Structures are given as structure tokens and as C-alpha cells.
């Protein structure tokens, strides 16, 4: 089916998320929509899917104008979507999820689960998915959950399939398999819109590429274009894709973790007997697919996990049973995974956020009173030092872009005397320009002799920063390998396969 978007404009208040976007996807083609976070890709697709109503412009399928009042209409017209955050009900089975919204019933309104199971098996067999229709979605790995999403779309006879950032949660191997599935779908005549900001994937699978920046189409590119060309088109200026980094100047062991185990409330060992050491002036990158214990590991380092065994020592001081306050005072800087949840108070100003973890005394508080003058001077310095783009230090943090918010977090954490920096997903939801800046600051921190632990699910980031790479899978360390380990090997390790040699580094 041919899909055409003509002059789509979508505004949120004064923000123009999509500005007269034209896009044509021919039948049986994989069309990539490339753009940074916040460029307006997802908004455009939500307009296509009927979740948002466009302010201007129209959607055409096979040259006929469509009017979608909601996702139900879009689906009926043959549009399917695999959402970035899966639209699956975790407590339902695969069959229940697939049938939801177009259930077939037996007499008395009783659900016909048998026919739903058969449907799942049929589609699953056709593409070699191997999905059990009676499995609870919550129990499935994300890669399989994504296949359930695909089955869901196909069970409604989707002929245009939109993949919204589908590879964000996948291992490299799963990503390759997904590419295979996309090609297979294309062969069977399905049109595919593939939204991403990862250049490698685009060049591998796309037939045509449309680049979007700040809500506008800024150009088309062919899959043969180089990474640098695509990146500069996407960002609007030349970007350095690699971080310049000297050989590490290693000092003595600073962070020593021995036999660390974290138990969650239902008794699962989410971090299982983990031991590692980070030396002064070294970056240890923790790689792995989201949800393999990295979050719990960083939280344990900060004293945020209640049930842990084993030992965590920084410069010889045992901190495994210390409170977060004591750990912060011991000189641990923490960039949390989700800055809006753990790192910042959105309704507070930049100034207030910069003193969040220092409200217990000098220099910002004296006799219970906030020292405004000292604080504001500090805030002004940090805002210029960290290049936070804002109208002023009294702006609410909520109003900043993701990249600028992250700079505020980094400014706060790096302005103390650190003995360890823990940065979890430091560039998630951050624009390419800020990524460059944040990576530079992390490397500078390392060069000043601070041990750094970076947790990232992005292999590019791991490769850019790491002196050594620790791969986690199902709560255990698969291996600790040198920073220049090839991505194929890392990819296999992320799926739990232990390297047989060269593990010591």
C-alpha cells in the first residue's frame, strides 16, 4: 500500500512539532525517518496513527484521503504500529494482547481464546517467531515482546507498518534479526516506516531515507551516504562522532566491589555475586541490555537498595551498609538513569536543583538559612561552565530540553570533590550536540584521576568512553573485556555468551 503524508502540521501551544511535512512511502519499501530525539518523528507517526489530530495537512493511502478520528480508524485502514514503548498489557497473555480490541466471541459473549491462539501460532509460524500464545507478556524478554507487537499489527492485516525506535531496547543480535524480519515483511508487500536516530541501522536496511530536524523535512538521502553526511544532515552542522580520549593514566584501585548481590522484594537476585574493581583515572563501562541488573547495581553503589550482601569499598572505606547521605559525603557523584525521576525536581529552578544534595550546611546553608548570594553566584558560574542553554538561573528545570537538564545534573555532581562518579545512561534522551559535551566532561573527570562507572545500553557510547567494558546479563557479569573489544563480541556477550579467552583485562 502506498502511504502519502501531505503538509502535515501539528502544534502544541506555541511549539510547532511538525511543520508542513511531506512524506511518501511506496508499496513494499522500507522508508527510514531519521532525526534526533525531539525532532518530531514520533509526533508525525502519532498523527498518522490517529492518536493526534493534525492541525493542517492530510494523510493519503493509495491516493485516497483518510480521516482518522482515532487509532481504530487507522488500523481499519491498514496501518499498524510497533511503538517504542510497547503497547502491551503486561498481565495479559500473548493471545489476549493480540485479540484485544477486535475480540472474537462465542455464545454469551465468552472470549474465543482458541481462535486467538490459532491466529498467533499461524503468524508466528509464518515468520518463524516462536512465540507461545499462552505466555504472560510480563515474563517475555523485550525482543519477544516486540514480536508480539508485530503479530498484533499483522493480525489486523496491516499493510503499512510503522516501527518507532524499535532497536532501542534490543541487543545487536536481536536488532539483526529485526532487520531480517523487516526485509521479510517487505518481500510480502508490506510498506515499512522505520523511525530511528541510529545511523548504522538506517544504512543497513533502508531503501530511502528522509531526514527530519526541528519538525521539518531537511532532506532526503540515499542509503549509500556516509555516517558523517547523515549525522551533519540530522544535526545541522558537522559533528564529531568520536570522543577524543588519551590513554588512561591509571592509579591505584579506588572502587572495589566484592561479591555484591542485590535481592528484590520478591526474592530474585537481580544482581548476582558481582565483583569488580575500578582504578583511579579509569572509565569502566557497564554494557548490557536494559533490565539485566545495571539499574540495581548503580542504586546499590548509592545505597538505594535495601537488601544487599557483599562489599562495596571506596578508597578502602566500606560503604555497603551506609546511607545515601554518607555515600554522597564520601565523594560519590551520581547521574541517575532517569533524571526526571531521580535527578531533578522539575518544578524547582536551576539554582535550587544545583543545591539539592547540599542542603545540610556550608557553603549554601548557614543556620538553616539559604545563602542566596553565594548560591546564585555558584549557579551562574555553573550555567556558563556547562553551557546550559536557558533564559536564566531562575528558569524551572522542567522547561529545559533533555540535554540541558542533563547538564544541570552533571554540573551539580561534578562540582563536588569526587572520589567516584557513577553515570547511568548519561546521554539518554539528549541531543547529539549535548552528547558530545557530556562525553567530553566525563573523559575530563577521568583524566583528573577520578574513577568513573558509566552504565549504558548504547554500544556506541560504551565504545566511545570505555577503558574497560563489563557486560552484564541476568544479574551476572558475563565478562570484563578491553575497551576496544569488537561490537560483535560485545553483542554476543550481551546475550549471555561467555568469551572463552581474553576475558582478563
Amino acid at each position, binding site marked *: 500500500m502506498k502511504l502519502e503524508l501531505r503538509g502535515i502540521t501539528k502544534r502544541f501551544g506555541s511549539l510547532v512539532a511538525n511543520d508542513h511535512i511531506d512524506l511518501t512511502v511506496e508499496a513494499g519499501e522500507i522508508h527510514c525517518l531519521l532525526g534526533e530525539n525531539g525532532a518530531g518523528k514520533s509526533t508525525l507517526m502519532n498523527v498518522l496513527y490517529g492518536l493526534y489530530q493534525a492541525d493542517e495537512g492530510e494523510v493519503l493511502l493509495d491516493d485516497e484521503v483518510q480521516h482518522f478520528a482515532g487509532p481504530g480508524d487507522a488500523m481499519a485502514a491498514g496501518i499498524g504500529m510497533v511503538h517504542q514503548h510497547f*503497547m502491551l498489557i503486561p498481565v495479559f497473555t500473548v493471545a489476549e494482547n493480540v485479540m484485544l480490541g477486535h475480540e472474537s466471541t462465542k455464545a454469551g459473549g*465468552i*472470549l474465543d481464546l482458541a481462535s486467538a491462539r490459532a491466529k498467533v501460532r499461524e503468524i508466528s509460524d509464518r515468520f518463524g517467531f516462536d512465540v507461545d500464545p499462552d505466555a504472560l507478556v510480563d515474563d517475555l524478554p523485550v525482543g519477544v515482546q516486540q514480536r508480539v507487537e508485530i503479530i498484533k499489527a499483522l493480525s489486523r492485516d496491516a499493510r503499512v507498518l510503522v516501527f518507532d525506535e524499535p532497536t532501542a531496547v534490543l541487543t545487536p543480535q536481536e536488532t539483526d534479526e529485526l532487520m531480517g524480519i523487516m526485509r521479510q515483511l517487505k518481500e510480502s508487500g508490506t510498506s515499512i516506516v522505520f523511525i530511528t536516530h541510529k545511523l548504522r541501522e538506517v544504512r543497513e536496511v533502508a531503501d530511502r531515507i528522509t531526514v527530519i530536524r526541528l519538525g521539518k523535512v531537511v532532506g532526503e538521502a540515499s542509503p549509500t551516504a556516509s555516517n558523517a553526511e547523515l549525522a551533519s544532515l540530522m544535526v545541522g552542522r558537522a559533528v564529531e562522532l568520536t570522543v577524543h580520549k588519551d590513554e588512561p593514566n591509571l592509579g591505584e584501585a579506588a572502587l572495589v566491589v566484592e561479591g555484591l548481590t542485590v535481592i528484590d522484594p*520478591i526474592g530474585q*537476585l537481580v544482581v548476582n555475586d558481582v565483583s569488580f574493581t575500578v582504578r583511579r583515572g579509569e572509565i569502566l563501562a557497564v554494557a548490557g541490555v536494559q533490565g539485566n541488573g545495571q539499574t540495581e547495581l548503580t542504586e546499590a553503589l548509592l545505597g538505594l537498595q535495601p537488601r544487599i550482601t557483599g562489599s562495596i569499598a571506596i578508597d578502602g572505606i566500606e560503604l555497603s551498609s551506609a546511607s545515601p547521605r554518607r555515600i554522597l559525603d564520601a565523594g560519590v557523584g551520581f547521574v541517575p538513569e532517569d533524571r526526571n525521576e531521580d535527578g531533578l525536581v522539575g518544578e524547582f529552578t536551576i539554582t535550587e536543583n544545583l543545591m539539592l544534595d547540599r542542603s545540610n550546611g556550608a557553603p549554601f546553608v548557614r543556620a538553616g538559612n539559604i545563602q542566596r548570594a553565594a548560591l546564585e553566584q555558584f549557579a551562574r558560574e555553573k550555567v556558563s561552565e556547562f553551557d546550559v542553554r536557558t533564559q536564566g538561573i531562575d528558569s524551572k528545570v522542567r522547561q529545559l530540553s533533555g540535554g540541558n537538564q542533563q547538564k544541570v545534573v552533571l554540573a551539580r555532581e561534578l562540582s563536588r570533590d569526587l572520589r567516584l562518579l557513577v553515570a547511568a545512561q548519561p546521554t539518554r534522551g539528549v541531543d547529539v550536540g549535548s552528547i558530545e559535551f557530556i562525553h567530553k566532561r566525563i573523559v575530563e573527570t577521568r583524566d583528573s584521576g577520578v574513577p568513573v562507572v558509566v552504565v549504558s545500553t548504547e554500544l556506541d557510547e560504551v565504545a566511545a568512553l570505555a577503558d574497560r567494558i563489563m557486560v552484564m546479563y541476568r544479574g551476572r557479569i558475563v565478562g570484563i*573485556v578491553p575497551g576496544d573489544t569488537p561490537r560483535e563480541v560485545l553483542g554476543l556477550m550481551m546475550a549471555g555468551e561467555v568469551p*572463552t579467552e581474553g576475558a582478563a583485562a
Partner: protein
Amino acid sequence: MSTTVQQTPASDVPALATTVVTSWKAPIAFAAFTLIALLLAVFAPREGETGFRLSEAKDVIQITTITTPAMPTLWVVIVLLALATAYSVFIVASKRRVPLWLIVVFAVLFMVGFLTWAAAGATIPVVGLLFGSLSLAVPLIFGSLSGVLSERVGVINIAIEGQLLAGAFTAAVVASITGQPIAGLFAAMVAGMLVSFVLAAFSIKYFVDQVIVGVVLNVLVLGLTSFFYSQVLVPNAAQLNTPPRFDRLPIPVLSEIPIIGPVLFRQTLVVYLMYVAVALVYIGLFHTKWGLRLRAVGEHPQAADTVGIKVNRTRFWNVALAGAIAGLGGTFFTIGSGIAFNKEMTAGAGFIALAAVIFGQWDPIKATFAALLFGFASNLQNTLAVIGSPVPSEFMLMLPYVVTIFAVAGLVGKVRGPAAAGKPYIKS
């Protein structure tokens, strides 16, 4: 440096290693109750024999009353309780969970011991005790069904109390005017639904905090019914507040089964409706299209929206339905029991129903059992007061609420309600 990797099939995903989080809650509670029983036996021994009457005078099949000497029985029970406690310590020490059956056995044993002691020198009408428990549980069960439906669809229903009270009031007035209890029944459902409309409109359309709307509604209904009671019902009691009651409808054959028959099958229409409602809600929730969509909306509204389910419409009408069910439960207080409406006559039953929802893990069947437990606690207090127990009646009045607190507190953190309950669905 070369690095090779062992090839293993990529598809098999091992489960996370687990350990048992040992909880000493159960052994500690067991020990405490065993100690209570021991203290009763040592410091407040009671002479005489205790009777357990298992059938009523009018029953076709008569069962002889079981009589047992009070103190020896209590001592036997104490020994058994101590054994159960020791076993639970052994289980937890060997890193296992205390099984549910042990808790049930322990509770039943303790109840037998306590009743034998409390009723020494008298006879406990077992059938009467259970019959009353079921009756008192009726509004709680309707209320908890209402809570289950409402929360499963994503709206926290604190207003059960208000819905029950509105139902009780309307049922009394309409049944008094028409002389037909059945008319009162329908009116009560409408009244409960009206309360729900307000809850639904504010929480779904205007995103007001659902707990606050619920609390305000309870106060509003309480104020309104009290006002109309004193200004309108009291001066015109004969026309407006003399509700006829539902007759008991014994079901042939079934009602003659010993113990079970008189308890379950010599009830009024309201109770039989309750059986039907529990079954319908259970089947509806878990085996029909309606239930699948309802649960989807309460778990992940956005996902439901993307498959074309109208989230807010689904929420609105199911909250309304929940209100109607609670209103139906309210009829128990007036036309279900043949009592005139009185101020604040639901006396917190709505909140206990809410506790039953949580205790019952948002499952209609389990919530029903939880409500029955609370009903039993209430009626135990009545029965013991009648046969003259040595425990002060004020203390016994606490019983249902103490049971509620322990039941809910023991479960908090272990059960997970519908993921989106309490969160309005706001589309940009």
C-alpha cells in the same frame, strides 16, 4: 587480542536466580495468638461445658448438639497451636514460605479454642452465627464487587460508603411509597449510579484526584441523607420511612441440607442476587470481551487506546455500573432487613468493603471471602454479647476493625492492584 565466544542457542533465556525473602510475620503472629490463648487459660479459667448447636428447631434433619468441657478443650487447642507455631518456625528457618493452609488451620483452631472458652456454660448457635455472618457480609460483598470493578477499570472508588448509604436511603423511601420492595431495589441501583456519575465525571473528565472526590462524595451523601432524614423522613415516617421488607425465600431441597442449607438457602432475594452478582462479575471480568477491555483500560490505558478502545467511555460506564452494584448492596440495610432508614446507618461498611477489595487482591471471589471474614468478625461480636461472654462488649466491637487492619497490613506490599488505578488518562 583475540576474543572468541562460546556458541550457545540464543533463544533460551534462563530465569533469574532467586532466593526466598524470609518473613517472620507468620511465626510471630502465631506465637502471639498462642500466648493469648495461654494467658486466657491461666489467668481467666472458666468452668463448665460449651455446646455447639448445629441445627435449628425447625430443621428436617436434626443434628445433636456437640458438648465439650471448656478448659480441657482449650488446653488441647493450646497444645495444637503451639505445635503449629513450632512448625511455622521450622518452615521459615528452612527458608520456605508459610503455606496458606497452615494459616487457615491455625485461625480455625484459635477460633474453636476462643469460642469454647468464651461460651463456657452456654451454647453457641453455630447456624445462627454463620447465618448472621453471611447477612452482615452482604453489603460488604456488593460494596467490594463495586470496588473491584471500579478499580479494575482504573478509577479508585472511595465512595462505596456513599453509594451504599444512597442506596439504603432511596430504597427505604421508594419502597415505602410504592409498597413494593422490588421498586426500592431498582431505585437504590439508580441512586448508587448517580453517585458514581459524579465520581466518574470529576475524575475522568476533569482529572480531579479520585481519592479526594470519593471522600467528598461520602461526606456529601452522608450530609444529604441526614438532612432529608431529619427534615422530611422523621415528620412523615408513616408514608416515607416504613419500608416493607423482602420475604425470606427458602429454596426447596437445598435449604434442608444440614448447616449449609439454613445458612445459604433460607435468605432473601437480595442475598440470592448477591450470589448471582459474584458469579457474573467473576465470569465477566475474566472470560468476556467486556472484562478483557475493562482490565486493559485499568492496566495500560494507552495500550487500550492504540487498539481502538475508548478509554474514558469504558471507564465512565463501568464506574457507573459499579455504583449501581454498591447501591444494590445498600438495600440490605433497609428493605433487606425491614428496618427504617436511619442517619449514618451504613456505619463504615463501605470502608470495610474497600479493605476487602485489597485483601481480596482485586479478585471478585477472593474479595467475597474477605468480606465474609469481616462479616463473621462482626457477627461474632453480636453472638458473644447475646450469650454473655466475659469479654467487654466495647472490646468486641473493635473486632471487625482489628481484623481489617491486620488483614490489610499483612498484605500491603505483597499484592499489586491494577497498574493504572487512580491515574486519569490524559491524551495530549
